[in-house]
């Protein structure tokens, strides 16, 4: 990479990391919301 390898690869690696983090957190959020709703359903089911 003509001596600039460290710079270039760092950037690409950073990009991958950011995308992974975003995807991960989005999934976490989704999972948490699902769980919250399931708990809510169960709670309602119990009281009825």
């Amino acid at each position, binding site marked *: *990479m*003509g*001596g*600039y*390898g460290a*710079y*270039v690869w*760092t*950037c*690409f690696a*950073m*990009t991958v990391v*950011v*995308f992974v*983090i*975003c*995807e991960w*957190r*989005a*999934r976490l*959020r*989704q999972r*948490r*919301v*699902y769980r*919250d*709703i*399931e708990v*809510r*359903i169960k709670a*309602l089911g119990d009281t009825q």
Partner: protein
Amino acid sequence: MIPWFVVPGLFLVAYGAYAGLFVAPMDYQQGDAFRIIYVHVPSAYLSMMTYMIMATSAGIGLIWRIKLAHAVAAAAAPIGAWFTFLALATGSIWGKPMWGTWWEWGDPRLTSELIMLFLYFGYMALRGAIDDTAKADKSSAVLALVGAVNVPIIHFSVEWWSSLHQGPTLVRKGGPAMDTAMLYPLLAMILGFTFLFGALLLRRVRAEVLYRERRTRWVREMILSKGT
């Protein structure tokens, strides 16, 4: 829905990255360091695009009171902040070998992009500080709209002021100023990033809408039918 975005996105990014890293010829001025462009430009473009999406949907939500629009704005914010950070970070790393410095405080484009990062933070902070969802939606919408004035400043800053940052290369009179071997991977990366952004946004919007409507029957039925 999401796979429709992820698959083309990954393909485009894979092609773009491979071509950008290995196939495209070296830039005569910058050597191999210019290859950072293949992640820097898409991030920067997307950081601005996301802000516009956020501001526009916030505005739509504010004016026409469409709840989905507010959900989109809320979902877009963290993604936009990440892209802005990525643009700043990759730009900084690129700047070190090219301009000799990690950061240049006098540069209008760097500064206005940094301002946009702070605007994202402020938007998310305001949302977090207001408990009532409807109120949070509307307040942050006002903020997003006010801050939208910054986006054209970022884009045109290189034309209005003398800047370290190079001038527009793609969207200019006379067509792109790049050789096709270098250009196509870049376009692929931009498009690929956009698709992946779409996938991320959809996932977040889905979670957001479900959360907001968690008390309604349709949500309960949907979750139930998904099975435990």
